[in-house]
């Protein structure tokens, strides 16, 4: 499918430059081609045949896609959409390496592939292959420094037995208030299975019937960010088909990035007459975990001593527009102190696969972030998205803070607090 850079979208940029200070890569590099305004001007030059798409490959690759420029834009430019069009055009003349494309298509791009990956990763950890691999520096040799850094921080993943014990549905504790469908995600469920289970537990305790519709897969964000538009569309259609039959009140996810992709299916499929309405209905039901929990509140929580701070997930904040709910939940933790992380709204450097493909810039941004975390004096850094979770684990380790700062997902923190208030079985 040929994707063109849209003239209408590009012309909306009035080049006022309000996006410059919001852009993490511009702040690091101080050159215009590393800014949103610059990248739009470059894509416009491609659209006008003044530049070749390959001339602007580096500036496009260097974009985090965090979309912090969108709330800063007075003219409402849809930067994310323009970027994806540019990347799709780039992918046509500079395809992803075959093995990456294969992994996107089959390992992350199908429900079976996700299951297989989870099993393979467990086996890899179980057989202690990592020590051998690390000695030979294999991951770095194959996938580069970014992948090697990430490999080192992946926590032990759930076993096939734990996964097999997962039920297709969890009934509400007490009276049912809503019927909720849970979106598991690919990497999220592979690496942070426990977080998803915790989120489900919290939702059931707050009166939700939680179902895990079969046939769901990856949200498609990884595909569209890489310019693989057709694969992204395939994921969207699969998920819509899997979720729409149940007539759920809400579709919930714990990963800010995945949730953002789900919420934008309406835009992704807007021009497809067979799917546009179905996509709109789907997107309208999507909620982030913290957003729904706040709506269901007040949440009974037990003592959670410590100092907590919170790093926004860019796509949760800039795309899903969810910034207050996770903070409110943390502020409500009994016995805890909440400290706002300065510049929490700036990307941590993870940016999906950016931490792997653009490791150097990613590390510069990450180190700056870890320093700010250190200055808060927090004992727990709370995150709301899977790549951010992995990236901050790496950042805290690089900064030598691993003994002082825990990195936890908001669902894990809330689940612990809720269980402290009412251990299972004591619920009314």
């Amino acid at each position: 499918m040929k994707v063109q850079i849209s003239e209408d979208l590009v012309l909306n940029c009035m080049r006022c430059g309000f996006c410059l200070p919001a852009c993490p890569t511009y702040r690091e590099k101080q050159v215009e081609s590393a800014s949103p305004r610059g990248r739009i001007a470059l894509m416009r030059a491609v659209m006008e045949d003044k530049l070749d798409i390959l001339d602007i490959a580096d500036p496009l690759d260097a974009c985090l896609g965090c979309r912090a420029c969108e709330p800063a834009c007075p003219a409402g430019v849809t930067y994310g959409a323009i970027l994806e069009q540019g990347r799709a055009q780039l992918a046509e003349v500079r395809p992803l390496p075959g093995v990456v494309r294969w992994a996107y298509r089959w390992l992350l791009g199908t429900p079976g592939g996700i299951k297989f990956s989870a099993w393979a990763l467990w086996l890899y950890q179980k057989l202690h292959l990592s020590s051998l691999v690390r000695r030979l520096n294999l991951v770095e040799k194959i996938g580069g420094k970014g992948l090697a850094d990430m490999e080192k921080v992946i926590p032990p993943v759930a076993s096939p037995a734990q996964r097999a014990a997962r039920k297709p549905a969890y009934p509400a504790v007490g009276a049912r208030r809503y019927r909720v469908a849970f979106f598991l995600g690919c990497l999220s469920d592979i690496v942070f299975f426990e977080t998803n289970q915790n989120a489900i537990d919290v939702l059931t305790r707050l009166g939700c019937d939680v179902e895990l519709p079969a046939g769901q897969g990856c949200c498609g964000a990884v595909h569209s960010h890489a310019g693989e538009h057709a694969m992204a569309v395939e994921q969207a259609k699969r998920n819509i088909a899997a979720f729409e039959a149940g007539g759920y009140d809400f579709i919930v996810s714990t990963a800010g990035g995945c949730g953002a992709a789900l919420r934008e299916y309406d835009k992704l499929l807007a021009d497809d007459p067979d799917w546009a309405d179905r996509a709109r209905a789907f997107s309208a039901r999507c909620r982030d975990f913290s957003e729904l929990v706040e709506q269901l509140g007040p949440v009974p929580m037990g003592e959670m001593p410590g100092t907590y701070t919170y790093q926004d997930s860019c796509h949760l904040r800039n795309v899903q527009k969810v910034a207050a709910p996770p903070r409110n939940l943390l502020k409500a933790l009994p016995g805890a102190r909440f400290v706002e992380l300065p510049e929490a709204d700036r990307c941590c450097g993870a940016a999906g696969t950016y931490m792997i493909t653009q490791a150097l810039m990613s590390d510069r941004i990450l180190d700056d972030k870890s320093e700010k975390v250190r200055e808060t004096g927090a004992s727990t850094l709370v995150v709301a998205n899977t790549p951010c979770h992995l990236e901050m684990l790496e950042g805290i380790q690089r900064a030598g803070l691993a003994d002082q700062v825990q990195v936890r997902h908001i669902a894990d923190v809330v689940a612990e607090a809720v269980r402290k208030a009412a251990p299972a079985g004591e619920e009314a």
Partner: protein
Amino acid sequence: MLRPEILSALQAAVGEEWCLTSKADLVAYSYDATPLYQRLPDAVVLPRTTEEVAAVMRVAHEHRIPVHTRGAGTNLAAGTVPAEGGIVLSLNRMNKILEIDQENLTATAEAGVITADLHKAVEAVGLFYPPDPGSMTSSTLGGNVMESAGGLRGLKYGVTKDYVMGLTAVTADGRIFRAGGKNVKDVAGYDLVKLICGSEGTLCIVTEVTLKLLPIPETKRTALAAFPDMEAAARAVSKIIAARIIPCTLEFMDNGTIRAVEEYVGLGLPTDAAALLLIQQDGPASVCDADIARIAEICRQEGATNVEHASDPAEQDRLMQARRWALSALARRKPTTILEDATVPRSQIAPMVAQIQRIAEKYRLDICTFGHAGDGNLHPTCMTDERNKEELERVEQAFAEIFAAALELGGTITGEHGVGEAKSPYLEWKVGPVGIELMKNIKKAFDPHHILNPGKLFAGETRKRVVVRQ
């Protein structure tokens, strides 16, 4: 294309990494915030120090290469577009605040410091730098000085040039000099500091500035008043000033802007009002309270249908929303937004707004006006589409007529955006042939080979002046 030996001389001056020549980089520095203006430079150079700037200028001087200096490129008169190619000299990397002198109440900073960052730094120690141009979150101090940028607080506190006490600059042939300093009183020779303020990069390159600071006002109060007709709003403005009250902000929005904001954000504004005035006073709480109460009273006396005022910060913020959303709401309506800054003496606001409305109708254009009522600095904003060439013709004619109308009312063609390239055909209308000649001679004294921001201020040809029929 620069010859290889010139390029290597530039690379030697700033380091290879900071001398950009890729096709993509040249496109990325071919524009500023002015619609419809674009021109590729031959190289982009990003120095880190004043000495590096001087080294770049020595190369440019030797080879007679045009140098277009820029900060964040937020200019609205094509002042930073490299009109004649050559070098774009970007000062963004010179972004250190060097000193906040609490005894002399000055701040000294490099040219690439972002205006809002300076605000934060001085406010952290209880001081205040009043100039607040609309683009202050991204614009740089160097750019502010070169345009003598204004802002919302101009009425009470003046504009950038009122705060520049000293500067470090580099001449066209690459020599470093300082002008002014921290002295409140200093009449040693011509006032080069004031001359350089607003010179739009055509005289020298400012690399460091020393700015005057004030103690931060204790608190603020805000009022919002809706008027059934423009004259009533204008009368209220005059009466407020006549009552010996100088508010720190006195902003105005016309009916078109009110409707655009309401349509976009839905703040519950009265969409049938002809004008909104947004008024803010700062200072000691008791003075602010008294002033705002008196202002509200004056607005009601002059026929305001609805007056709200607030002291609670969140409430004040809500009232400020309308003005803050003005540009966004207008910019979203059509792809191309042309924002001008025709300015008249405060007493002429009502006739000027009437002229703008008449001209918009005459040329069948969508022009809304908002701006700084207190200092007569208006922003007639035209929403158009750059693909519609026929309409663009009409836009140009309409703005020519708006500038002529402002001059008839004793105003000026630009209050705070600068002349740049976009308004150069109109400069002579304002300053006359003698003014142009004097300015050109000043330019020659600073830049005999015409390499500093050529193509700006002075037009190849002055437009024939439009006669405005009242």
